[in-house]
């Protein structure tokens, strides 16, 4: 019985140690390693790609987009070149001869329907501001796409930054919030037991 208490207690202290390490990691601030900003007018029924980048799991992309109408923002887990090549292969007649046609929303919707796994985040902005935050689980190409589904013009403005973190903040925070209390819970019987044994020893002396 006593050995089980010790075993659980040491398991608890190990969990506390893991929790403390992850807590420390979560407290380390992120470093800004890149930023971008841009504004423009999105023509009706078209799409644009204001930003593309390669992200590692230690990088987090934070984007805020504002618009004076309804816009859709997508974060796609592919490079722009992949989207371009796909459209070029699917509709060989369109790009080049009529550049404006290339940005037609139909092509984007077709691409996203055929490659739905590439859509990491999708948000709708209605006369206001929306923010996106994304941390990949592997080294990933990402493309930010702004899509105007309305027939009218929409003015938009987007700002973003790439933050370098030691580890995904939410994950390590959750880990520390789980392991530290659980560790303490497992350690309590061991601490009580050790305290009792010490007291017994003191009274014997």
């Amino acid at each position, binding site marked *: 019985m006593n050995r089980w208490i010790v075993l659980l207690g040491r398991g608890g202290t*190990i969990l506390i140690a893991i929790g403390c390490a992850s807590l420390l990691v979560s407290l380390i601030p992120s470093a800004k390693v890149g930023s971008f900003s841009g504004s423009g007018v999105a023509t009706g029924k078209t799409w644009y790609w204001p930003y593309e980048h390669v992200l590692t799991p230690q990088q987090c992309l934070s984007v805020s987009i504002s618009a004076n109408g309804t816009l859709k923002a997508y974060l796609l887990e592919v490079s722009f070149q992949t989207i371009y090549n796909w459209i070029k292969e699917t509709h060989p007649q369109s790009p080049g001869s009529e550049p404006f046609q290339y940005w037609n929303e139909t092509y984007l919707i077709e691409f996203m329907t055929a490659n739905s796994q590439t859509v990491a985040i999708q948000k709708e902005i209605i006369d206001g501001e929306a923010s996106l935050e994304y941390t990949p689980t592997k*080294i990933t190409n990402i493309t930010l796409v702004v899509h105007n589904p309305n027939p009218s013009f929409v003015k938009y403005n987007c700002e973003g930054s790439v933050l370098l973190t030691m580890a995904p903040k939410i994950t390590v925070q959750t880990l520390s919030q789980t392991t530290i209390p659980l560790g303490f819970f497992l350690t309590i019987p061991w601490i009580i037991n050790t305290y009792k044994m010490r007291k017994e020893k003191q009274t014997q002396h």
Partner: protein
Amino acid sequence: MKRGKPFLEVFASAVHEDYRFPILEIFVFFYALGTFALASFGSALSTMGASEEAVAYSLASSVLGTPLFVFLILIIKNLAYGLGSDIEKGVIQTYLSYPLKRSRILSAKLLSAIGLSLLILLGIQIPALYLLAPGIVASHFGAVLLTYAANLSPILFISGIMLLVTLIVRRGGLALVFGIILYFAFSIVSSMLMFTAFATKSSTILQILSVFYPSTALSRYYGMQFYPGIEEVWVPTFQEVALYIGASYLITIFTFAIAYIYFCRRFSV
């Protein structure tokens, strides 16, 4: 006394001695912290056209440098200082009086000294790597395990030699110093051999080095560069890498087998 209980008694006593509070917790803390602090995708990103498997290898390698050294320190402490002191102080005599085979006494000591240390290292680092990059680690778990296997082999080989030395010299302090010297000697010799291989463009040197340091073959397989132009010298196939890892573990097993034979047949208190 139940069969197996003396084994557990020796094991429990060894664990109690090797991992007194808060030694285990400090190591766990640093392994966890070290994994996040040392993890880097840098070398994979700098290698043009690196496959996702190579990225997994590069990520696992990046967290192994210092923690492996710390892992060795823990083993040196447990083997040289722990077992060595037991021999010096005559504690081993008590163990030998147990109704237990000598080989099982040594197994219990090694399970605590090396087995538990290994469990802590792998049990902390691999889940931490998964938290960091779940997409890479989950889809290339084999590559991550292979990287660990290749990097741990020389450390376990040094541990085997140290065990043998500890049993022969029967002095904790002396074995401790020997272990540290051995590690530095191995590191220096491997770096010198690596440079010589690069300077002479000799694949044979890299192949010899890979028998003791299979991580050399694995890094060449994944196309990681130590020196510019080394890719022209030697690029092993996966089968060759597996062979080098297997050979290095055979040497390690052989070293431990000698230590076991010595402890069972020649060792006297």
